[in-house]
């Protein structure tokens, strides 16, 4: 057990631990680490959760296709447990939902038997509708689950009829638009009866008008006894493979985002940068290979200034601290994430990028000289708003005033399907002693000291999101949410 007092390299230790102990114990350890904020930063949390889920799935008693509902239920339970441990770390929910998506994906692919697919889909939809307390359909495309990075394969559900509607063949997925879907759901979903033999009727609104064939609402998805040509295959291996891909994605995300850098940073540009996230750093470093540009770094006092300075510092004795994530002063927990060799070697200044460090108060003064503003993010929300380093909203607002584009770089794993009904509840307040030390008795005794570590930036203030799967405007992020999570978005909170 990692104890806060020992200041362990929590993530590294956990990652080592998780492979050797039982999943339940590992869950307890991670819950503790999350509660004590020993693992912070979206990336580290995502990695820890993904590894834990890998362990959990590989030790779960449900392995067969027919038991997939049990597996989904277990994973969902685990997810709720972790989310409850640290409700403000939305990335926990993202990773759990992605893994749930992987499991569902495997079920679908294993179910490509004609006729059976219908049932599965029906189950999937009826699940979304019938268990309102368990999962909420956020109005996305039910078939877009097929678009997750793990599968290039579409549903093979059209059964090869010749007169299939061209569109539905092209899409080769059963889409039911929300305006019909909703009219058909509530318990018994009115999906077209497979006996009609017109699979693609479910393609559209018709299902609204179709009469309902009540599907078994209690056992969504798989009803092996319903069709006999059904092989109850072991899906565990495939699910684990999917989770591994997710973990790989977390490793590669910076590089993938950075691949877009050349198109966004042009020669002789002045770029204002807020934050020290590794994604942002890699992005700038990659751009620096081909482009000559100037970086105006915002100091981000008091929570991020040390790291920000490290980004600029020439590689010397302090370099091992580059890329650290912990807010506030450097602590051993910074060794959480093993630094890559690239990070060890180079900082912006060392590769010859002209860098200017400005205090936060100088942002409005400098803004007019800047070509664009680059930021990292902590979490991106479904409506295009995001949560990121404190001070970001001021910067974004100032940029808007000057009509300067605000570009956010982030891995897609940070995209949360949640809607910010109450943004304030998602923000975190940090240690006020970073601002005023306890030794300053006059202040501590008389003034209230408040140190928010996060800022909510509404979508209107952001012009563009660059993710590892491409660029999106805030208005179109909902499409990406559909692609990443599909229609069934589990409520974990």
């Amino acid at each position: 057990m990692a104890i806060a007092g020992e200041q362990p390299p929590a993530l590294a230790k956990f990652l080592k631990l998780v492979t050797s102990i039982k999943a339940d114990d590992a869950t307890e350890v991670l819950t503790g680490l999350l509660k004590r904020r020993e693992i912070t930063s979206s990336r580290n949390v995502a990695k820890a959760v993904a590894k834990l889920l890998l362990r959990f799935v590989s030790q779960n008693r449900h392995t067969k296709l027919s038991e997939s509902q049990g597996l989904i239920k277990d994973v969902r339970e685990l997810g709720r447990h972790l989310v409850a441990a640290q409700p403000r770390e939305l990335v926990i929910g993202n990773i759990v939902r992605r893994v749930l998506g992987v499991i569902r994906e495997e079920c679908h692919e294993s179910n490509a038997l004609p006729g059976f697919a219908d049932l599965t889909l029906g189950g999937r939809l009826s699940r979304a509708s019938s268990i309102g307390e368990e999962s909420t359909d956020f109005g996305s495309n039910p078939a877009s689950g097929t678009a997750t990075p793990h599968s290039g394969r579409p549903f093979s559900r059209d059964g090869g009829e010749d007169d299939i509607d061209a569109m539905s063949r092209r899409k080769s997925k059963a889409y039911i638009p929300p305006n019909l879907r909703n009219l058909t759901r509530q318990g018994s979903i009115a999906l077209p009866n497979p006996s009609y033999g017109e699979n693609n009727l479910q393609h559209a609104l018709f299902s609204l008008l179709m009469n309902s064939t009540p599907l078994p609402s209690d056992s969504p998805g798989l009803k092996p006894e319903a069709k006999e040509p059904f092989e109850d295959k072991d899906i565990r291996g495939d699910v684990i493979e999917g989770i591994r891909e997710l973990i790989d994605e977390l490793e590669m995300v910076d590089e993938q985002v950075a691949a877009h850098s050349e198109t966004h940073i042009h020669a002789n540009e002045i770029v204002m940068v807020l934050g020290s996230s590794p994604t942002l750093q890699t992005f700038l470093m990659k751009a620096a290979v081909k482009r000559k540009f100037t970086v105006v770094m915002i100091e981000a006092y008091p929570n991020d200034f040390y790291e920000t300075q490290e980004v600029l510092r020439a590689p010397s004795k302090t370099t091992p601290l580059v890329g650290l994530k912990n807010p506030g002063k450097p602590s051993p927990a910074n060794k959480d994430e093993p630094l890559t060799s690239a990070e060890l070697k180079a900082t912006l200044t060392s590769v010859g990028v002209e860098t200017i460090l400005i205090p936060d108060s100088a942002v409005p003064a400098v803004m007019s000289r800047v070509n664009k503003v680059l930021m990292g993010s902590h979490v991106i929300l479904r409506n295009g708003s995001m949560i990121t380093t404190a001070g970001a909203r001021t910067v974004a607002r100032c940029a808007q005033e000057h009509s300067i584009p605000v570009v956010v770089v982030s891995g897609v794993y940070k995209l949360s399907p949640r809607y910010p009904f109450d943004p304030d509840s998602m923000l975190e307040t940090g240690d006020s002693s970073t601002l005023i030390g306890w030794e300053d008795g006059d202040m501590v005794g008389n003034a209230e000291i408040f140190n928010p570590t996060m800022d909510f930036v509404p979508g209107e203030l952001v012009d563009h999101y660059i993710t590892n799967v491409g660029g999106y405007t805030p208005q179109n992020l909902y499409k990406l949410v559909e692609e990443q999570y599909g229609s069934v978005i589990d409520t974990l909170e």
Partner: protein
Amino acid sequence: MAAVATTLLPKLEVPVLMDGEAVVNKPKPRPGVVQLNSGEFDIREVYLTYLRNDHDLTMPVAAIKSLVDLVERINSQTTAEFLDVLNQGIDALKESIRNPISLSAGCDLFLRFIVRFLRHSQSMPKLVAHLKQSYKLFDSRAKDSRKRLAKFGSSFITDGCTVLTISFSRVVLGMMMDALRNHVRFQVIVTEGAGGKRLASILREKGVPVAIIPEGAVGYAMHKVDFVLIGAEGVVENGGIINVLGTCQTATLAKAAGKSVYAVCETHKFVRLYPIDSYDLPLTQTVINFSLDDKEEQKPTEKDTIEEAERIGNDRFVDFTAPTLLTAIITEAGVLTPSSVSEELLKIWF
């Protein structure tokens, strides 16, 4: 322009009538009546009856129900004839109702359904049988979607907030009722016109403090408001909404004050239109009436029909609110950005 048109038209029509051919007269029946082999079918009356009998029925669903009634009466042999009569019915309905925007969403949806169904099954008896079967479900499905929407949207209403709304909207009321069920304490400011008082009395009965303000006080009240909730008769392709007159000004004032504006409506009200502004809507309404005569000015602009308009919903003035003024559209399918509306529509149509 308008003057030219009106003077020309009668002149053209009179000679036609003078020719006295009965055949020419035949396709000019009363508005809203469809000629069938088996006789006449007054689709307008059917539609209005549905709306009068059930105050919870939305216009698109009422339109679908009247079209189902029509379909049951068509006994045609060929698909082409069948579709022809159906189209006649849809046209008759759209033409006979002054503001057909909302109902046309239902008509379009129904027509798309029929076309696809026939393309795949080719069998009209099957279609009619199917429609008969699912006929009763329309109401409950539509109401279910309103319930879902209310559940979804009520998360916006939090303890201690003040909501501004205009006129009477069933979905907005549903959301507030759902919030009440969750024991949320909030207060409401509502404008007095177009059913606002009705909303106020319902909410007050449930113990919600409601302030009724005149339309002119919206700007005054805006700074006391946390966000604005408005219903919608229709959501058009660009994400803008069509709703009772006054929506546009409220949304503009809210935008100026930096308050969020949420449009609330069921997705079956998405309609395939692309209006540029309020004068671009496919309906005639004289809101702006220049006059040199005092007496004419006194004429109440259809105010007497308010009671009826509230119930039937198609006799009131509407305006168009641009998507840029809306923060989000709350539907039973989730909270959508205005820009996602066109995509949802495309999925149905193509």
